[in-house]
């Protein structure tokens, strides 16, 4: 007899994992939306933020002070990246910018290890991961907390984009950078702000992922989890990143549990990419991405 309770457990677990993927994907979307750059260094930024934070904690600095210092460092990093890497490459083809961020990811990873060492660290953010038993279905308290943080972050960004002048300029640049430039918006300032926002997302995601995996080099690999989310949800939609994350999380877990045994297991890593690839063929801009129409 089919075990529906188990199905629900797998589904809920997948959706909650998906929220974690969304957190990483949002960082990509912010940059892509306003500058058209697929920032491959997002994972390295996440590692850098988490490693900086935990290293400060281990030097006896309190949690809130360490958070503020790391935030400041991420702001400086974001602005520096814009100044030193992106601004000189303005008007270059997208592949050039992508390669620049690829190189940047190695530089940031190397710098993180040079500054803070190569040791792995535990990170306790005070959320117990003892499961909640709801009618026989185990639900992770930590994942619920992560979902609440991700939800709050999205709500904050939504309010920011809608009701602040900077948010409005982000949207203007995203819609049409040349028109935005024509009406007097200063693109470098907008880009610096958006890299800063992306740094903040990296910090939040870094703390949550760091608490989940430990703070170690492989944190930078979580970008691989965000890529199918972006393909599915669209590279320029925050809502798409959230829904894409939920879908990918659920697909991964359900496929691993119910289809995996037919292939000897271990399929979840590529099952998500199969779905993303199929969608790419049908809808290249993703479920929520803007359709690019070019006049030729």
């Amino acid at each position, binding site marked *: 007899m089919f075990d529906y309770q*188990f199905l629900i457990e*797998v589904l809920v677990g*997948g959706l909650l994992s998906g929220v974690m993927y969304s957190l990483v994907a949002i960082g990509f979307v912010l940059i892509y939306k306003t500058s058209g750059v697929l920032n491959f260094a997002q994972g390295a930024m996440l590692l850098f933020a988490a490693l900086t934070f935990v290293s400060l904690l281990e030097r006896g600095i309190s949690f809130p002070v360490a958070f503020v210092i790391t935030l400041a460092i991420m702001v400086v990093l974001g602005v520096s990246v814009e100044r030193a890497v992106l601004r000189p490459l303005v008007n270059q083809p997208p592949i050039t910018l992508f390669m620049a961020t690829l190189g940047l990811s190695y530089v940031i990873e190397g710098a993180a290890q040079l500054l803070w060492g*190569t040791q792995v*660290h535990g990170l306790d953010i005070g959320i117990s991961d003892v*499961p909640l038993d709801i009618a026989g279905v185990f639900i992770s308290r930590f994942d619920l907390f992560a979902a609440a943080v991700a939800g709050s972050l999205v709500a904050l960004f939504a309010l920011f984009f809608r009701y602040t002048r900077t948010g409005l300029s982000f949207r203007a640049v995203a819609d049409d950078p040349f028109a935005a430039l024509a009406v007097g918006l200063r693109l470098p300032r907008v880009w610096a702000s958006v890299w800063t926002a992306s740094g903040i997302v990296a910090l939040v995601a870094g703390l949550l992922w760091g608490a*989940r*995996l*430990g703070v170690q080099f492989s944190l930078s690999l979580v970008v691989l989890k965000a890529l199918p989310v972006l393909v599915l949800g669209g590279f320029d939609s925050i809502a798409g990143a959230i829904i894409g994350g939920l879908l990918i999380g659920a697909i991964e877990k359900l496929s691993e549990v119910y289809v995996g045994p037919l292939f000897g297991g271990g399929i979840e890593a590529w099952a998500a990419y199969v779905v993303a690839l199929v969608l790419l063929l049908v809808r290249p801009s993703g479920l929520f991405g803007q359709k690019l129409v070019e006049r030729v």
Partner: protein
Amino acid sequence: MIKSRYLKFAFAAAVASVLATAPAARADEQFFPLQSYRVGPYAAGGTGFFGGFIDYLNLINIRDGGVNGVKLTWDEGETQYEVERGVEVYERLKGRPGVAAWNPLSVGIAYAMIDRITKDKVPLITINHGRTDSTDGRVFPYVFPLLLNPYSETSGIVNYIASREGGVDKLKDKKIVVLYHGSPYGKETIPIYKLFANKYQFSLEQIEVPHPGNEQQSQWLSIRRAKPDYVVLRGWGVMNPVALKTAQKVGFPADHIIGNVWSNSEEDVIPAGDAAKGYIAITTQASGEQYPVLQEVIKTVYGAGKGNLDDKKRIGSVYHNLGIVNGILNVEAIRIAQAKFGKRTLTGDEVRWGFEHLQLDPARVEALGAKDLFHSINVTWDNHEGDGRVTFQQWDGGKWKVVSGWIAPDWAFLRPIIEKSAAGYAKEHGIKVRTSGDEAVSN
């Protein structure tokens, strides 16, 4: 601190460049080329292992003036655990005079070197890892998976579980899940667990975790549904702490998770926090700094400011102690070979002979200051593993505590399987199987 690290780095680079162009080593030196990895994803393990190895070589140089007057030297090439870089370092350093042995601590690099070191006649040491069938010295004269190969590890874990249940006959009808890393390393023991399941009549399920293993919700939900008595964790890197954390999420007790030899370090448990408390893992060398040899390293090497670890808190950690034991085995192989060939710089083939006569009984291990650090080793020309014993340690949230005696794997059961695999390799590669270890040593 950071400044001093930069200075050290600059100094090391300068020294390395001088060494790279240095003339032939003096006649009384024995050289260890080290394919280390001190940056990149596996740097935590690399710094610990190579740190321990170098600390022991330094101890021999400072305390004894080398091995019977032959000074031990080394040079490092950074591999970042990548096979291509490992081979590049091999090609760069193989021409240095007096190469004693290669110790890459990497399955991938070791595999890529087998043909090369066989041609160059220099031993390749793969302590606790490597090809299982390289245990058969008749086919692999220059490869030494010292102390423990993956099949012996499997047997050691099954024997430990049996001891907890009250004997191998109590394994009948028990259920064991093996959670393995989705890589050739992770999959290597699949058929061996099946053999033991048939032999002892326990129920077995083997579940793969895709690399790198940073997401395991579905695997652990499947485990919860399967309700096993034990889970064997055959992990690597980030997979290990994530397994422990996810086990906690689904309510599986940590003291019923048994980690393999690459899931047994501080780096595997510290990131998991409280979820790792009670977790048990196999090891060939105990952790801690209470052993006389470790005390000597602290006093003599770190006292002289020549310690290799930046963070002294890591002295006595699992990887550091593995490096120390690896140092003991390399140095003793040289000492044994010197007794036959003379107290001078040896050729790689002569050091190979030393490894093939590396017999350290518990009394000799105690004399070396390593009693209870590791048990013993008995390498012969056709058994390159050397019948290492294993022990099990439990993480208490702050350190590992030994919770078993020294357990012997079922070597007699495994040997025919190893010989069959080695014979297949010999046939495939056209290798003439040795019938004796007494052949002349080339110079």
